[in-house]
């Protein structure tokens, strides 16, 4: 369903207009007006093993106007749709999803009620519109706020015309911009041997200060926890265009494992985005249970697994994309071990331990969970 080439604004606008016409047709036929929306939930995603990606199924749900629980949402969906159409036609600069929320928020005539009470109401409707008109948010000229930073031997031509050299971004690194499409963030040069994705900024920051990327000749990137769409899209492009290995380094806990899977196979909620943002060739470098013994991690770094951890572990174990023998073994080992370990804690060995010993050893020996 996802187009490989960026679609023109006019094409998408035409589909939004068609959506409006379908609703009007319902009204004229005296039918309860409705919109069919692909369900974005676990029961409508499947794991495409060949592609290595989480994909959206074709189950749809109708959203009706004459339904007590849906009437407002129905109205809100149309408000979001018409605003996106307007943004596309007016060729305005891309807005953040929060700004879109503010352009639509006002009180409803004749009542004290507002069109939207919080951004939590408009954000999921943007995703609904994405699937209804078969276009990505990036194509709808909407941006989420990215958090990611990046450093290493790569030169990019930004949409502003600035040439960005990611070896010269200082201690803060270069920011991942909201839009990282070929025409807005063009990779001009890259001599890196691999990309290292790091869960946490603190760990990325230490590696950057130590110029790990220079020693290892790689790119280092962090999405500061759960990545936003831009970091995932950029990693996807690196895999596709640079054709270099990708290693993901997270905490040893169910949440860290899941962050890895979002980079690699995509997420449930944005399953329609996986083909554009997944990096199925990514490898899980660590931290893993086998590292404990191998690197003699001190007991002080162990954190006891809590009920929520076990619960989350059980959930991700059930995902089809975590059912490989390697992961089954890892989950079993973690349950037996009963502890989790944060990637930050490796500094307990020594400040240089991650850069000088852990990462080189793991990469050299290709010790990944697959």
């Amino acid at each position, binding site marked *: 369903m996802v187009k490989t080439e960026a679609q023109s604004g006019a094409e998408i606008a035409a589909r*939004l*207009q068609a959506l409006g*016409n379908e609703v*009007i047709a319902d009204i004229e036929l005296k039918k309860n007006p409705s919109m069919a929306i692909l369900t974005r939930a676990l029961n409508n995603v499947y794991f495409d093993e060949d592609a290595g990606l989480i994909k959206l199924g074709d189950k749809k749900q109708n959203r009706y106007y004459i339904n007590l629980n849906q009437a407002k949402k129905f*109205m809100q969906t*149309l*408000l979001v*749709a018409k605003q996106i159409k307007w943004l596309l036609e007016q060729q305005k600069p891309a807005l953040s999803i929060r700004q879109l929320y503010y352009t639509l928020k006002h009180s*409803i005539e*004749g009542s004290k009620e507002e069109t939207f009470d919080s951004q939590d109401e408009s954000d999921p409707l943007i995703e609904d519109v994405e699937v209804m008109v078969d276009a990505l948010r990036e194509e709808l000229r909407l941006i989420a706020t990215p958090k990611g930073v990046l450093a290493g031997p790569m030169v990019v031509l930004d949409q502003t015309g600035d040439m960005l050299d990611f070896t010269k971004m200082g201690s803060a690194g270069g920011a991942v911009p909201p839009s990282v499409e070929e025409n807005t963030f063009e990779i001009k040069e890259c001599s890196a041997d691999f990309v290292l994705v790091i869960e946490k900024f603190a760990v990325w920051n230490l590696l950057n200060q130590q110029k790990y990327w220079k020693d290892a000749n790689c790119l280092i990137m962090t999405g500061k926890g759960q990545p936003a769409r831009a970091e995932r899209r950029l990693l996807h492009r690196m895999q596709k265009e640079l054709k270099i290995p990708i290693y993901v380094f997270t905490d040893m806990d169910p949440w860290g494992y899941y962050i890895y899977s979002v980079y690699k196979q995509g997420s449930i909620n944005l399953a329609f985005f996986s083909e554009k943002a997944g990096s199925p060739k990514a490898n899980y470098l660590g931290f893993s249970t086998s590292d404990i013994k191998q690197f003699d991690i001190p007991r002080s770094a162990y954190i006891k697994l809590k009920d929520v951890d076990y619960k989350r572990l059980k959930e991700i174990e059930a995902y089809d994309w975590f059912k490989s023998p390697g992961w089954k073994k890892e989950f079993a080992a973690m349950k037996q071990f009963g502890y989790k370990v944060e990637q930050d804690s490796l500094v307990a060995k020594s400040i240089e331990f991650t850069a000088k010993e852990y990462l080189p050893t793991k990469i050299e020996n290709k010790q990944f969970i697959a």
Partner: protein
Amino acid sequence: MAVNVAEEMAKTHKAISIAEFFEKNKHLLGYENLQKSLLTVVREGVDNSLDACEEARILPDVYVELQKKANIENRYKVIIEDNGPGIVKKNIPKIFGKLLYGSKFHRLRQSRGQQGIGISAAVLYGQLTTGKSAKIYSRINDDKTHIYELHIDIQTNEPVIVSEDTVYGSGHGTRLELEVKGRYVKGRQSIYEYIQETAIMNPFAKIVFVDPDGEKFEFPRGVDELPKEPREIKPHASGIELGTLLKMMKGAKPKTISGFLAAEFSRISGEKAKELCVLANVDPKVSTMSLTRDEAEALHEQMQKAKLQNPPTDCLSPIGAKPIEEGLKKELVPEFVTAVSRSAAVYTGNPFLVEVGVAYGGNIDQEGPVHLMRYANKVPLLYEQSACAITKAVIQTDWRRYKLSQSAGALPVGPMAITIHFASVWVPYTSEGKEAIAAYPIIIKEVKLAIQEAARRMGVYLSRKRRANEAEEKKALFYRYVAETAGALHDLTGKDKEKIATQMSELINEKLKTMIVEEVEEEPVEQEEIDNEIPDEDNGEENGVEKESGE
């Protein structure tokens, strides 16, 4: 020397008359300030009228008038007239002119007055504050009206007749005219409030009130039937005090102790009486006159322990749920009303019962705490609210279960009136002022049970009403979003906004006709657990009395 002092002191010892005592202690009888004193006078008169009518099985018509005396500050003439049976000529002076004279003191049946103090104390108060005598008119359906002017001799507690006359008069009834010092107020604890509360709980009475400005208020009859007539009963062994027992033995005609027990107490058969004597090591055949104090004490102990049936409850005269609802409806015009009349229970041997009425919304629109009306034997209690067992029971009830807000240790808040009626042969007042009921655990428990039942019904009503409102509100939202939706569709398609809006409204009209908005199931209102931890020493269980009252 000590003897001399004692003799000196003896010279100053002398008997004081009861009237003299109350002159000095009139605050005990409700005459502590001018506002309350005026109310007490009216209250004594109205209570007497209603008691007399009820006893004679006459639907009461009571007329109350207050006239402000010109040129004298805080001076009122109080007139109270009823259509009761009237009073026979020879009893008039003593009823109005002698304290502690009456028919009610030793009698175990429910009535408003208890001690025969009330009306004569009002006469005494009037004479003490104004120097004027009381004027009484009485007719007993013998074509005569007897008119007395009298006051009380404070030394001897005997009536002093100033004038007496008999004129022609038809019908029956009593009229009292009294001049007293007092202050008339409006609002809380006012005479108006007392009369209105009386009208609510005595819906079988018609009351007319003319205030000092000459304004006339009519409180019409709500029901045409008098409450069941209470029957007089003998005392019950459980909870009787040793002193009372001794006094009863002394006053009784000499006979065997077992015969005395069987004759003077309810629920003690001849068989049972003998059994009690044997248990107490007392010869059943011994005369009450020759019983020793120790024997009496042993007998008293066995009487407390004995397993006896509860006293008969036909000594009580409940108003009944339906008349209470009618009373609330006619006086308060609420949108919802319900009432609960519980069956009788027993505290220290005295049968009692509790009735609760709840009225919500409608013309009741006060903000803040609910309007709590307390009653003892159909008489409103206007003072000492916080000291009263009834108030405690209301506060201890968790009203949030019933959709009202309530902060800890306070009355619930909302447009609601609660009437709580405590009926008993003997009301355990906390003081002589007769304003608050003592907090026996069994009384609190009974009040709470009655409240919970009434409140539960109200809670069901309120949640049903809330759901109905919500359903209406929800229907409205379909129309509310039309303009925004039509606007968005116009922006998407360029089609005419007004036309889309019109079509949508028509569509909604049509669809709503057949749409039943969420007929949600009734939320069950939880029944509050009664705190069974409270010591039940007064419910008779420890005394071996069965809990359910038997006849």
